[in-house]
């Protein structure tokens, strides 16, 4: 690291000493112009995000190959790959994947619509807030897991219960973040809208909703994560299909390789869906210039 900094310093010294020869600069003790320390994290390392995971996989491969990892605790990577191929051949992985993904998608979509609607109603009207905000805060204090027994009594152990659980989990972050964003629209913009004599409709469509969009998208990211978490929970408690069921079944037969296949699929799903939300964020919020880019 040090050498890189030195090189940069030498270069800039060479240039600015010549240029500043005629200018009376306040003399520094060393005589070399200072290179300003940058406060940001600095330029990105190529493939920086992949380094940590790659290291973990390497440890896994090494540990399994050297026999340091007991296959009953953690199957070797190649066993997992084999299991992956076998599960695909049998069609089990695809079937379970489709079941799980559609549960998640349906739950997420319904929760998204309900959460957004509630947030908009509570965010734009005092009566709405009085009616909605309290119950949501109460629901927020109850862990979704704790509701499952009640939901089973109400909906049985079928799809209805599973989707409802996901919906209830997803509503919360969507509502909280969207509502908060709606409530914290800068009052200067409200003033502006007043002086421009904007109609209520224009005010909501041009100022309030676009201004709350970043908050909504943040809520969406949390919601997507929560959606997968609750999916796992409902599928491992009471299910006869789905990834969680596949994993739970593998547990009873002690098949760590199948468990790992399931986990890998969960990881991919989580990463892909988070990536999609981020992509959406970048497309929709082009006006934002943030530290990230």
């Amino acid at each position, binding site marked *: 690291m040090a050498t890189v900094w030195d090189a940069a310093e030498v270069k800039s010294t060479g240039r600015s000493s010549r240029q500043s020869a005629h200018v009376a600069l306040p003399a520094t003790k060393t005589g070399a112009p200072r290179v300003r320390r940058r406060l940001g994290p600095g330029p990105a390392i190529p493939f920086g995000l992949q380094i940590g995971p790659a290291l973990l996989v390497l440890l896994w491969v090494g540990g399994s190959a050297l026999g340091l990892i007991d296959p009953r605790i953690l199957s070797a990577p190649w066993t997992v790959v084999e299991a992956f191929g076998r599960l695909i051949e049998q069609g089990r992985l695809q079937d379970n994947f489709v079941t799980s993904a559609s549960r998640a998608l349906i739950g997420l979509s319904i929760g998204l619509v309900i959460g957004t609607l509630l947030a908009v109603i509570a965010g734009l009207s005092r009566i709405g807030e009085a009616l909605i905000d309290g119950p949501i805060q109460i629901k927020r204090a109850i862990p979704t897991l704790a509701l499952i027994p009640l939901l089973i009594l109400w909906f049985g152990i079928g799809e209805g219960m599973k989707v409802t659980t996901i919906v209830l989990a997803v509503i919360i972050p969507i509502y909280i973040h969207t509502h908060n964003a709606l409530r914290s629209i800068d009052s200067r*913009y409200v003033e502006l*809208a007043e002086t*421009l004599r904007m109609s209520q409709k*224009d005010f909501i469509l*041009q100022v309030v909703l*676009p201004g709350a*969009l970043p908050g909504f998208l943040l809520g969406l990211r949390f919601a997507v994560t929560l959606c997968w978490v609750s999916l796992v929970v409902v599928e491992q408690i009471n299910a006869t299909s789905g990834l969680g069921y596949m994993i739970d079944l593998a547990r009873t037969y002690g098949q760590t390789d199948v468990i790992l296949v399931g986990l890998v699929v969960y990881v991919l799903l989580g990463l892909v869906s988070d990536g999609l939300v981020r992509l959406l964020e970048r497309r929709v919020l082009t*006006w*934002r210039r943030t530290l990230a880019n």
Partner: protein
Amino acid sequence: MAPHASQLNAVHVRNLVRGFKSKTILDGVDLDIAEGEFVALLGKSGSGKSTFLRALAGLDHDVEGTGTLETPENLSVVFQDARLLPWRTVIQNVTLGLPGANGQDAGRKALAEVGLAGRETAWPNQLSGGEQQRVALARSLVREPALLLADEPFGALDALTRIKMHALLRELCARHRPAVLLVTHDVDEAISLADRILVLDEGRFVEDLRIDMPEPRDHGDPRFAEFRSHLLRSLGVNLPGRKAA
């Protein structure tokens, strides 16, 4: 049919009182601004200039007060910050709340007037501070206001940009002829732009000065200097060794 006095005026204020808690900020203020008249309002920091301007703009919902206040329906405000919506493009900001295609054309024209033709689809945070303030001016102009209220609109700009903005504002006002109330800290700015200068102090206008110099006004003109020292004295600034006159 003799026109009523207040119909000729863009602004008609009588005995306006405004205050916060028990503190009185405006203590029975009277003011008439004629149509097309350019008035600058000076005053120490905290003297209540913004309070007065916000009262005219109808933005002081939760300020206590009494008095008569008549302003045209069609007034426009320029704030110290450009106050552009960051999530709307420049042209969308200019035409905010205006209906349809007419608005689009007028917006384009207004942008050209402030020298920003071609920047229609830029985002506000891609513009410099001066450019943002010009967009805010275009946003005001496109509504053809009868009264333009500006609260230190150039306060955040550097001296060079400010001089250019003065010229632009003078030109725009000459063309559109709105009545203007410009709140400013800058005595020179007030003298070079205004037809009339008010000084607010202790809740009252203590000065109402007509600036009858031809435009453009030369800062080196001895009358300019005279106005300046007079106003500075009203503002409580005593320049030492300047009692030559």
